[in-house]
């Protein structure tokens, strides 16, 4: 191959990202007002956001039965910090504040092993 694996992955990732942004401008411009497009445009983004939250929290798996975590002891800090982010955001609605304080609390918990 011309490129080593890291650069192959970067180029593929760049092309795939640009493709998703470009697609409607080249292919769907005449279907912009189709009701199915409007339906998906309305409901898919919020669904994707929550799926990404679930994806990010997948290492917390109490459903496994024994609270066994598959990534060290990060499971409980993950949930506590997430609750802090959600609580802060519902209270102050300041995205930066919620993200910074939530991340700081998570880093403290995993680095000092307060929980887990």
């Amino acid at each position, binding site marked *: 191959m011309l490129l080593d694996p890291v650069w192959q992955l*970067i180029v593929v*990732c760049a092309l795939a990202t640009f493709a998703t942004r470009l697609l*409607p401008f080249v292919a769907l411009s005449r279907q912009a007002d189709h009701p199915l497009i409007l339906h998906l445009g309305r409901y898919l983004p919020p669904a994707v956001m929550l799926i990404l939250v*679930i994806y*990010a929290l997948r290492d917390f798996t109490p459903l496994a039965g024994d609270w066994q975590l598959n990534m060290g002891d990060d499971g409980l800090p993950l949930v506590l910090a997430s609750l802090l982010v959600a609580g802060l955001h519902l209270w102050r609605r300041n995205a930066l504040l919620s993200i910074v304080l939530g991340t700081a609390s998570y880093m403290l918990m995993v*680095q000092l092993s307060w929980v887990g």
Partner: protein
Amino acid sequence: MISQAWREAGKQTLPVMFGYLPLGAAFGIVAIEVGIPWYAAAAMSIIIYAGAGQFLATTLLAAGAGLTEVAVATMMLNSRHVFYGLSLLKRFQGAGWRKPYMIFALTDETYSLLTSQQAYTHALGFRISLLNHLWWFTGTLIGVAVGSAQLFNSQGIEFALTALFIVLTLEQARRLKQALPFLIALVTGLGAVLLLPDRHLLLGAIGSASLLLLAHYRHDRRRESHHAS
């Protein structure tokens, strides 16, 4: 000598700067931690320019995923951009030489700024897109510098991405005020966590959520035509 348009764009992108510098730095640090060279991480922030997409790319790289997997997972993760584009079809008309770049640089945050303009012009929109890209790249450079130098213990900083998704979900819920997409996400998301191997998880969840929304659309249409007859 800074023009009025640049000053206005700078003012408007200030909140994004505060978000992109630490998040870009978080990406730079994570990239260094999984063994990506600093210049490759910097290049990713120029030519990929997608927060979640770049974090996903580092994960897939560390996991040794195949290129097809990377392409499909990236497109699924960024599928929401298709709908951003649809709602900007008319707004971007007449943007001329700026248009390809503005489509390329269409992140969540840039989309939010561009669609909330009271007096939108292509000159201002282009500057907003370019400045956001610059904040993200600068953050990445800070991150690879800090990550390489090990100035502080960065363990856990990748939680910034999880926090971002939580905030975006709450903002979506606030705007939409409907339970349907969140119920669908709970079912498909938790189902995928329980049933699918890690590398297919995101694909499976978003794919099945799209199918459920399609079924819901067809159900609605049938019910409407039934009422009409």
